[in-house]
């Protein structure tokens, strides 16, 4: 696929680092799979979940939860993960995955927070086609090291396009199954000035779906925590 001018400008910049060569923990192929639900994931293996001992799925799920917890921003994560591993050795993996102890809960909470951020980013990032529609551009604020996980989601979903997302102050570019990253610094991405008619269509559709008899703002707030409201701009249609 022909690369867009915006991508070429960024890709030719010598500071771009392929992910895996910088300070990230995994090459894209080794990134942990999407978060599951801890010990309950084992239910996916039919009746297998009832027999934990010697169940390789339990070890695999535990490994995945550790991978996710490692992406958490909190520097105290290493101590929490260490304690979880100790408890898993001592009392069994299910003891930790099923969050029996307070330490296990803390550990699983780290993994859940990372998983939740990835989920919300894949839900709420709005992409804008730029450069003759060859690039899908978005912005999002993240707290954890979830950028690569999020990029992989969109690269899989839109393989025909180059995906460019600004996370905090870094731009990530996904193309040809590789992810590149770079600090944005003072540079700005050239975005089209003309309003997007499909944004208008989206808002029209969104408005049409509301059932006033069922108004339940409390539930809405639970589903979209306030910190994400700035990305879900359609909420303004109802004065929220």
């Amino acid at each position, binding site marked *: 696929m022909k690369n867009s001018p915006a991508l070429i400008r960024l890709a030719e910049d010598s500071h771009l680092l392929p992910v895996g060569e910088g300070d990230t923990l995994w090459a894209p192929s080794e990134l942990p799979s*999407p978060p599951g*639900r801890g*010990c*309950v994931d*084992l*239910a996916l293996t039919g009746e297998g979940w*009832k027999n*934990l*001992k010697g169940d390789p799925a339990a070890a695999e799920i535990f490994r995945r939860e550790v991978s996710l917890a490692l992406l958490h921003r909190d520097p105290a994560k290493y101590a929490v993960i260490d304690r979880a591993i100790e408890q898993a050795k001592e*009392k*069994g993996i*299910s*003891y930790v*995955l*099923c*969050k*029996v*102890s307070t330490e296990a*809960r803390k550990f699983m909470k780290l993994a859940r927070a990372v998983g939740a951020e990835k989920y919300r980013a*894949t*839900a*709420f990032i*709005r*992409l804008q*086609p730029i450069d003759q529609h060859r690039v*899908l551009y*978005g912005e999002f604020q993240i707290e954890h090291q979830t950028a690569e996980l999020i990029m992989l989601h*969109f690269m*899989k*979903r*839109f*393989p*025909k*396009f180059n995906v460019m997302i600004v996370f905090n102050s870094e731009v990530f570019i996904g193309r040809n199954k590789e992810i590149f990253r770079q600090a944005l610094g003072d540079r700005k991405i050239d975005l089209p000035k003309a309003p*997007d008619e*499909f*944004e*208008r*269509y*989206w808002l*029209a*559709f*969104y408005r*049409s*779906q*509301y*059932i006033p*008899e*069922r*108004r*339940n*703002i409390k*539930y*809405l707030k*639970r*589903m*979209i925590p306030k910190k994400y409201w700035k990305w879900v701009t*359609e*909420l303004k249609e109802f004065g*929220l």
Partner: protein
Amino acid sequence: MDTEQKLEVLGAAAKYDICASTSIKSSRPTGRDTIGSHAPAGICHSYTPDGRCVSLLKVLMTNSCRNDCQYCVNRVSNDFERSSFEPEELAKLFIELYRRNYLEGIFLSSGVQKSSNYTMERMIRVAEILRYNYKYRGYIHLKALPHSSPDLIERGAQLADRMSVNLESPNPDRLKLIAAEKNFMLDLIAPIDAIQKQIQKGLLKAGQTTQFVVGAAGETDLELLKTTNWLYKKKGLKRAYFSAFVPPDEQRTTIHEPRVPLLREHRLYQADWLMRFYEFKLEDLVLQQDANLSLDLDPKMVAALKHRERFPLEINTAGFKQLLTIPGVGPTAAKRIWRVRQEHRFTDLNELRNVGVVVKRAKPFILINGKKQGSFSSIMPVKQLELFT
């Protein structure tokens, strides 16, 4: 009408179709020239102020309809402006919205224009354009219209991930009251059978669903739950949706049922979940004398209070099915308890709280290592409890 107006009208006409699920276990193969993918757990891209997830472009192909269903705003006797999407127009619109990550998939339903088969052809055309022209690999939910031919359902099943037929009423007698033109077995159950055949062939990985309009035909909860149970057992239904009847235009409909409280819909879902995930049988549910579920207490608590002699249960030895009967213990917590018990004995309420048990509700119904944790009077006064004996 321009596209924006069509979206407003045909989106609003589809909003009472509740299904917003996009969850699917297996993905369609993707390649370098495809667009779209499935997320195993589904993704909600937005929520409306009623707290409902917006994940699908939920629209009608047309709001023209030759039927005169009394619960429906699009019925032929209702005088208002009609509109339709062209298949190419709708497919392009959806792909552009999908590309901007507003949506997770499309849910396409329709009024019956000319005939069911004519309209189904047009709906299938949208799916064909998406799958073949745009190489779209994401989620498609197609409604099968009443009296659709098995051939069209077969074609739809090749393209869609889920198909569904809305029963609206639990049985022929009730249906007659609100949709006199529809034949329960021929128009509604026959397409359900045709969809089931396609699922048995390995198509429609997200299964089939149905929806009931609760309260429009004066039916009882027992009637609804009986039919739902039959559909799960005999027709392989994935799930049923319940939509509390909201009179679309009270002055002009022949339905004079009062507005249905949303709590009734909620109780039906709770009972439905007990049958789907808690290993409850229909006969395990306790109904009031009027054959409806209690609105005051959830059906699981009602069943537990009715059978107090079965409690308290020892949390460290109770069987899996027994765990599921304890109020405050859901399938996830029950699975966790089961697994953890293989290597560890529960010693206190805190550990149970950690694995997801709602301790406040569960306390009167459990023992931990032989020790009682609470009494029934903590749930409700003794006088009220007597009502459950």
